[in-house]
């Protein structure tokens, strides 16, 4: 079924290399990454559903602008919801919520699947793609928060007593690389490497 395939074998970030921009900007902390992931699941799912419902009525020449309008409608809903209930979180995400509109992942699912398929499979395909994206975001966010801050979800994982102090300068330190954006490139590269190796091994 398309749903499971989207989650693992055709993971949009790791295999199709789509939707990278936000994967780098929002993964410093795990809860931010998860919020972003949830927003993307919502937007891809429902925009795929509605594009698929309207697929016989959208003229081909204005296809892209119509799809963008539908997508931005759902992004506006997410943005207003975050502003109303999670104001601090929406301040941190700032323009990245708006940038879901141009996230190639959403557009890619609309173009590649939803425009030629009935509503229910399109919806599942969109949700699957979104969830695959959310999982990768959560992995990157988790690694970056754990090694960059020693915390997960804002709770301390690596005890403070392990840290280097003025008296014991040879103990554990946070990795400074992890809270600047380039680290996400390296983590993603390692994930892609792993996925490719796994595929090679399975194919023999």
């Amino acid at each position, binding site marked *: 079924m398309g749903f499971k395939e989207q989650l693992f074998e055709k993971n949009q970030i790791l295999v199709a*290399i*789509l*939707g*990278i*921009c936000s994967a*780098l*900007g929002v993964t410093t902390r795990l809860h931010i990454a998860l919020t972003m992931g949830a927003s993307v699941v919502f937007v891809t799912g429902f925009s795929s559903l509605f594009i698929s419902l309207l697929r016989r009525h959208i003229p081909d020449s*204005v296809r*892209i*602008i119509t799809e*963008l*309008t539908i997508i*931005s*409608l759902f*992004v*506006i809903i997410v*943005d*207003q919801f975050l502003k109303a209930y999670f104001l601090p979180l929406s301040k941190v995400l*700032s*323009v990245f919520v*708006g*940038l879901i*509109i*141009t*996230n*190639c992942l959403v*557009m890619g699912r609309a173009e590649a699947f939803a425009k030629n398929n009935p509503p229910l499979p399109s919806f599942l395909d969109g949700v699957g793609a979104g969830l695959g994206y959310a999982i990768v975001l959560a992995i990157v966010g988790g690694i970056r928060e754990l090694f960059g801050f020693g915390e997960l979800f804002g709770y301390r994982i690596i005890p403070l007593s392990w840290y280097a102090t003025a008296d014991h300068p040879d103990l554990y330190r946070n990795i400074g690389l992890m809270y*600047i*954006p*380039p*680290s*996400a*490139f*390296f983590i*993603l*590269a390692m994930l*892609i*490497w792993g996925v*490719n*190796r796994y595929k*090679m091994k399975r194919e023999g």
Partner: protein
Amino acid sequence: MYLFGLFIQSVFIENFLLSNFLGMCTYLACSSKLKTANGLGLAVVFVMTVSGVLNWSVHHFITSPEALSFLGVDLSFLEFLLFICVIAAFTQIAEIVIDNKFFSLYRSLGLYLPLIAVNCAILGASLFAATRELPFLPNLVYVFGSSLGWWLAICLMAAIREKLSYSNPPQGLEGMGITFIMTGIISLGFMGFTGMNLAKSTKKSEQVKVVEKKKIQK
């Protein structure tokens, strides 16, 4: 001097591709050849500058909270929708015009125009400019500088990727993996610029205002 500082700031220090990471998808798809990257970069400069100015007017006259206060409405929630419609409509119109009037230009630039409607850098530039509430001229300099920075970055990467295709990376890392690592290293280089702020206002009256504010706070 302020405008020049803002220009340098947007080209190098806040480079869209290398320190804000916008427009990554287009970059990864189109940077394996220098010639393609150059054409795409030029198209981005054109679209980003014009749509940046158009979106400034949209923000200024329609969606900023004060713009339509005389009607008693606040349309700021429509900002995303209007911005993306302006960008998509503009790229579509530009494609038609260039196709009909300037055919030689169409071959080098027009092919990339439909791709650009979904380039996050274009929407990102408009959104960043809107959140900063820049006046008209600084906004123009900001979007133009950002687009030049994007062009510079994609050409830089494409040149390296051309050489990279002859190299011999570990198995499974070739293609996208090694490109990611390479991009990460270059963006680490650009991180060296962070913390610099050239876009400070040098007007005396504004400096005086800041000093007065500080005195009041004390």
